[in-house]
């Protein structure tokens, strides 16, 4: 891309230098704004403010962030999309880039729409493409608000003019965010906002460059998958949580720390993930609905505990917010490469379920379901999230309490226990699940153990007992099938193009379907929600309705595709993989589908 010296501020921008769309000042129905700078520049704040404004304009919102695993310094950017039509992923290109330094221009312009423009901070941004306009954001913040840090709110003010925001509503968003802080934070932000608007008006005149149309989406809430999982845990009766800080799982612990104690619950930050999983197991054994949440490295440390819960038949929920691995990998970046670990990890063989929500309200529902299934089947249940689903704020269906139900399975009340002539913790039963007592109850004593054991919980190496106990535990995988969350199917009844995916690939796949449909291509998408045991029947039925199926996932080896092929050896599935740390965007999926040979 050619670069030119930045526009001189002393003279107004000559109108012939404005891109055609800008001259048109055309209405937009789908707009994305990226803000880039150094960590600590407040880029995320601007992104949040824009998201909130779009939300209040009843648009569908999707925000994405690209931050390094450090607090200050290093490039950081965030993008916020507002759209009249439903969207669930990042827009393919940015309409506006706000750059606080040259690096932000360099990195951001690769994503800039041909009709987009860059708003640069005069004094920090020195060069860029033709469509770079400079405003003295930080200088104004420093000289007129008294602190250069307010440059982000100056930028928000400038954007509010350039994009034709409703001024009162845009101010209202600031008030909502800073009003509660007290002190002069709100006053300073409001004056920074006004200064930003004035700067923009002086540059481009009264008329905004774009005008984003308001939407009609009055139902949605703004949330993240992590927040949804935390809420699902609370309303699903979860009362004990232990975790150890790790990106991108930490917000689950943060939310629960705030909410759970008021419901008689306990949240503990453990000394490591070994402790977190074993505390969770201890609390679950004692009768509390219990969960831990982690990401790759922490999951590796929890691995021995996973099998322990399976063998001892203790109901726990383990959330894995996947990020780039192995080792420390890229802590803040996106990947779906832990599937094999949650399905096969830990020595020996034991039953477990792996559930994978695709969007926040799905995460809410499946967290409740995970708690139920764990207790009903007395085993570990994994809730598999990924970085984008965990962390990216997006519009979501409101969380629906009316769908919530609590099923504690064969947990024995003191009365039910007293009525039993004999209590055996590992009683052989038809469905492989034994009635369960918890400590404190009379008549329910016995051993809960990771050693192989007989029905009483006594250690046993008897071969016949071993065979029966293995069948009792592992058989849960087959016997539970009808209980497990069903996949969701979207699109045409019969289609040329089939998609299978889980987690946040939901977004780009659904948007790709919209593009394909506009091009007259029929498509059908199976959003897998139970990944283990592999939902063979659902997959088989689905495969019968599509010509070619693409399994979309974020890893190198095609883990989900491998699981599908293992269950259905002749399944004609092709992998669409991405493993560069970023998520698919819809047009990219469409392109990859078209490139794939028939």
């Amino acid at each position, binding site marked *: 891309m050619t670069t030119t010296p930045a526009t001189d501020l002393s003279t107004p921008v000559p109108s012939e230098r404005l891109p055609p769309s800008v001259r048109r000042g055309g209405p937009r129905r789908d707009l994305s704004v990226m803000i880039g700078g150094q960590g600590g520049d407040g880029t995320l704040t601007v992104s949040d403010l824009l998201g909130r404004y779009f939300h209040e304009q009843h648009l569908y919102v999707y925000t994405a962030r690209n931050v390094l695993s450090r607090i200050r310094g290093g490039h950081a950017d965030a993008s916020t999309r507002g759209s009249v039509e439903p969207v669930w992923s990042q827009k393919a290109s940015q309409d506006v880039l706000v750059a606080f330094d040259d690096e932000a221009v360099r990195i951001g312009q690769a994503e800039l729409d041909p009709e987009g423009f860059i708003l640069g901070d005069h004094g920090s941004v020195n060069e860029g493409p033709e469509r770079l306009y400079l405003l003295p954001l930080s200088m104004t913040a420093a000289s007129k608000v008294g602190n250069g840090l307010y440059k982000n709110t100056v930028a928000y003010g400038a954007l509010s003019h350039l994009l034709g925001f409703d001024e009162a509503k845009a101010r209202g968003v600031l008030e909502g965010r800073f009003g509660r802080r007290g002190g002069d934070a709100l006053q300073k932000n409001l004056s920074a906002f006004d200064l930003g608007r004035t700067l923009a008006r002086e540059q481009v005149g009264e008329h905004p460059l774009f005008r984003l149309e308001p939407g009609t989406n009055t139902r949605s809430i703004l949330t993240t998958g992590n927040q949804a999982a935390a809420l699902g845990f609370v309303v699903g009766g979860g*009362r004990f949580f232990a975790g150890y800080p790790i990106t991108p799982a930490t917000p689950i612990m943060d939310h629960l720390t705030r909410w759970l104690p008021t419901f008689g619950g306990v949240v503990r930050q453990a000394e490591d993930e070994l402790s977190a999983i074993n505390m*969770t197991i201890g*609390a679950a054994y*004692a009768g509390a609905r219990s969960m831990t949440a982690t990401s790759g490295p922490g999951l590796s440390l929890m691995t021995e505990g996973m099998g322990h819960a399976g063998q001892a038949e203790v109901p726990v929920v383990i959330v894995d917010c996947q990020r780039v691995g192995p080792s420390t990998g890229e802590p803040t970046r996106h990947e779906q490469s832990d599937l094999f670990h949650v399905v096969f990890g830990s020595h020996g063989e034991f039953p477990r379920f792996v559930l994978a929500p695709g969007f926040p309200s799905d995460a809410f529902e499946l967290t409740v379901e995970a708690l139920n299934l764990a207790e009903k089947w007395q085993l570990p249940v994994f809730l598999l999230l990924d970085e984008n689903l965990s962390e990216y704020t997006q519009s979501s269906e409101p969380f629906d309490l009316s769908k919530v139900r*609590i099923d504690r399975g064969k947990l024995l009340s003191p009365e039910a226990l007293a009525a039993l002539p004999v209590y055996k913790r590992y009683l052989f039963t038809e469905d492989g699940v034994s009635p369960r007592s918890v*400590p404190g109850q009379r*008549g329910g*004593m016995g051993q809960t153990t990771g050693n192989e054991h007989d029905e009483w919980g006594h250690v046993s190496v008897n071969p016949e007992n071993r065979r029966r106990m293995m069948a009792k535990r592992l058989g849960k995988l087959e016997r539970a099938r009808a209980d497990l969350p069903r996949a969701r199917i979207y699109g045409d009844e019969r289609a040329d193009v089939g998609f299978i995916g889980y987690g946040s690939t939901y977004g780009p796949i659904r948007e790709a379907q919209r593009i394909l449909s506009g091009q007259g291509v029929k498509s059908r998408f199976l959003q897998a929600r139970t990944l283990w045991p592999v939902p063979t029947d659902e997959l088989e039925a689905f495969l019968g309705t599509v010509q070619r199926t693409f399994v979309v996932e974020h890893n190198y080896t095609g883990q989900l595709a491998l699981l599908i092929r293992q269950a259905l050896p002749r399944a004609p599935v092709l992998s669409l993989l991405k493993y560069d740390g970023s998520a698919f965007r819809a047009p990219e999926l469409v392109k990859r589908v078209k490139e794939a040979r028939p």
Partner: protein
Amino acid sequence: MTETAKPTAPIWCPGCGDFGVMAAIKRALGELKVPPEETVLVGGIGCSGAIHNFMDGYGFHSLHGRLLPTAVGVKLANPKLTVLAIGGDGDGYAIGLGHFVHTLKKNVDLTYVVMNNETYGLTKGQASPTAPLGFSGNVETPFDAPLLAMSIPSSGFVARGFSGAPREAGQLITQAIQFNRERRGFAFVEILSPCVTYNDTYKEWREQVQNVDTVPGYDRTDRGKAIAGCLSTIASGRIPVGLLFRPSDERLAPSLDRTLLPTVESAPATAEISLDANRARYEKLLAGLA
């Protein structure tokens, strides 16, 4: 009465010190009249860690080194329970050492009994963190867990007994459980428990143990003096036993479960979780999101 699992016969070698420890624990629970259904015994992995199989109560066999987090989870889920974590020196001071220090820091109302035999009994006699120089090729100087425990600012009950003196050991465990029941914090009791098969130390230990009550000037209520008293006892070739450290009540760090769950009635395991009972508050929580 519902019939439940009976304790199994101990699998320990005849003469193993762990018999004495079990007798001491049983005596303590009996003396305090703790109902077995309210007793949770969390075992580690090792000869010692199998103890819950041989006793009445709710037994949980945890992973090697992970008995303390498990026990903490149990206690925080239901603080009404009397929780004992019981394991070996390898389990607690090697693979589980991080949890040991952090459980002292957490200060949860549970008793941790370590049967120290200076070796890994179950895996056939390797050197443990407390093994003396020269034992089984050991070239690392052993450490002393009660001294370590006393160095943690929140510790409030540190004791050492000898399974060759089960009455005294039993008294220490009684005091420890009582300490928990009064919600004063975490209690740590190491019991010297000879492994007759791989490290038969009965004779030496019988000669070496010295109750700190008989050490002139020993002050168990003062952290610095208690540590100094133990160090000088060790320097004189003796092993300090008895209640080594127990500051006055007002100097005890707050217990975690008492801080988090001041009333034991509504705790994670016993909280009312039905939707109906919580609906109004859930709705309010969800409304905060819009």
